[in-house]
């Protein structure tokens, strides 16, 4: 895979229904690209959003199976997105994994209480993150995509 050519984020969706689709929401383009490469290497489809506003619009259009969400974002931070996702019946069941540089001491509990299923502080261990993604996608419907706090 060529690391130097930026991925065209608008056409990043592949029309393969059997592969799970993960939406990456992060304002750092380099990290979005790295996560995209990592997830695609693990046979996931990816779509990317760089801020809160486009994340919601994209989620409505793309209906991802899972969302990887940064908390510090322009145009609606991670908590705003979590709150909005809950309001759309079609989106409220999508499992959300928070991946943020923010302090877990102050943010983990609020994020989980806002509906996130897991909280990772950056930099996260790849294997742990992929493990949680896999379990969430496998069991996604078992607990309705949401783990009530």
């Amino acid at each position, binding site marked *: *895979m*060529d*690391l130097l050519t930026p991925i065209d984020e608008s056409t990043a969706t592949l029309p393969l229904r059997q592969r799970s689709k993960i939406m990456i929401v992060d304002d*750092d383009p*380099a*990290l979005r690209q*790295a*996560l995209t*490469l*990592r997830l695609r*290497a693990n046979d996931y489809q990816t779509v990317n959003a760089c801020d809160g506003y486009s994340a919601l619009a994209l989620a409505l259009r793309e209906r991802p199976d899972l969302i990887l969400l940064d908390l510090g974002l322009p145009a609606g931070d991670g908590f705003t997105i979590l709150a909005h996702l809950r309001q759309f019946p079609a989106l409220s069941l999508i499992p959300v994994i928070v991946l943020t*540089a*923010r*302090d877990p*001491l102050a943010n983990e*509990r609020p994020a*989980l*209480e806002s509906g996130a*299923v*897991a*909280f*990772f*502080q*950056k*930099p*996260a261990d*790849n294997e*742990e993150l992929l*493990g*949680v993604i896999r*379990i*969430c996608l496998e*069991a996604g419907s*078992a*607990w309705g995509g949401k*783990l*009530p*706090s």
Partner: protein
Amino acid sequence: MEQQPAHVLLIEDNPGDADLVRLRLVESNPPVQVDCVRKLSEALKALAADTPSLVLLDLNLPDSRGAETFRRVLEKAPDVPVVILSGQDDENLAIKAVHQGVQDYLIKGDITSKHLDRALRYAIERQALLRALDMTRKQQLEFKNRFLSHVSHELRTPLTCIHQYVTLLLDGLAGPLGAEQADHLRTVLKSVTQLHAMIRDLLEATRAETGKLRVEPRCISLGQLIEQAVTMMRPAADGKRVRLETVVDPTIPLVHADPDRILEVLINLLDNAVKFTPAEGSITVKASMVETDPSAVYISVADTGHGISPQALPRIFERLFQDSESVESNRSGLGLGLYIAKEIVALHGGRMWAASEPGQGSTFSFHLPVYSLARLLAPVITEEGRLRPSFVLARAHLKPVTTPPLGNWKEFCQQVLELLRRCVYVDKDLVLPPMGSTGADQTFYVVASTDMERVAIMLRRIREQVNALPQAGGASTIELSATPLAAILTSPAQTLEQQVQAVANSVTDMILAELPGPRARETKGGNENGSLNTN
């Protein structure tokens, strides 16, 4: 900025002295408002209602005498300047008063109006300066901590990016790598890990300084924790050909400590020991009871390394301290590890200290509190002054399916604990405080004063309710099981207290034996057959 003593609270029981002071102060220019009270209790009430510019204080009052008088006033109004006006010319008391925050100590009869006026004005000035200084110090500390916290979070973003791309390359996701390229990248990854650890330490030290460091104590097996730490550090020790030994007293009971935090402390001490011990040297981790204090255990990490110079030894726990005399030039930390370790131990109510003989090695030691089960058990395992006939140890083991756990794991564990408390007989059974080791797994124990038949019913009830919890499906596995306690051998010669202790020891032994580690003992005869599992 100069201030006049506009409003003086005079605390003086002698009406003559009070009038004299009042007269002198009224002569001052501009005039001063003087309120006079005769007792300490009245003074404290006045200070609660209003803040004067200054307190003028006689020490011997009807309801308080000597140092106690100014101590109470300073405690009540820490920001108000206090000047003592005493009939007693006691230099020692005066110095003590000033050390504790009193602005001046004047002797009655020695002062003229002019003196008094000036003394009071200067006292107010000094107090204002002190306050400003204190405010600045607090603001600086606050700013420094906010800055450190901000910086350490901001550093994580680019660090994450480096980490992601290096692991992408190393995992071959951007094409195959040559051996040398992979080697270089592993060096980069190692540095990334070090940088990550430093950022974490920076934040931890900031938290320690502002009292925001937290520990979550549980009942733990110290032997297991030491074993875990030694296993983690063994590759590093082997790599340097340093022997790593443990001497753990098998009679150590449950210890009340945060397993993740104490593991961090042990790893930190072991990491230092490995770093400063040359090849063929040895490191010994010891744990034993404290002879003089049955409520504490002693843990030490001793090495045969270069030791610490006498100049460096007293400063070894200071923040950012690095021994410039140290033979070891390969620094890979910020010099915050020992500071954080000491703070963590202090949060457990223990203390940490170091001893060293240059050239002979160093020993880092600390104390941790023992958890006494006997006190907790006493009310439930006795009846009419004697022990109940049989006991069963029931357990609920909670294991998340992922690391880190999905959902609000802590909250879920708390819900299970509360559920257990609801499912037992309050007067006969006891849900023990959380037990366990590092990581997310949780084991809750119930000591039930009953037989296996009734416990089986209890476990069924627990199982039904646990399954009804929202997070129970998919995100975790929950094992419920029970084992009867071997008959407690008691003799009529034993006091009830000793018998309770015997049960507590038996329960402790069983729990410690179940947690893996050097304390693991053979299951006592008879337990095996009677065990119960409902999964």
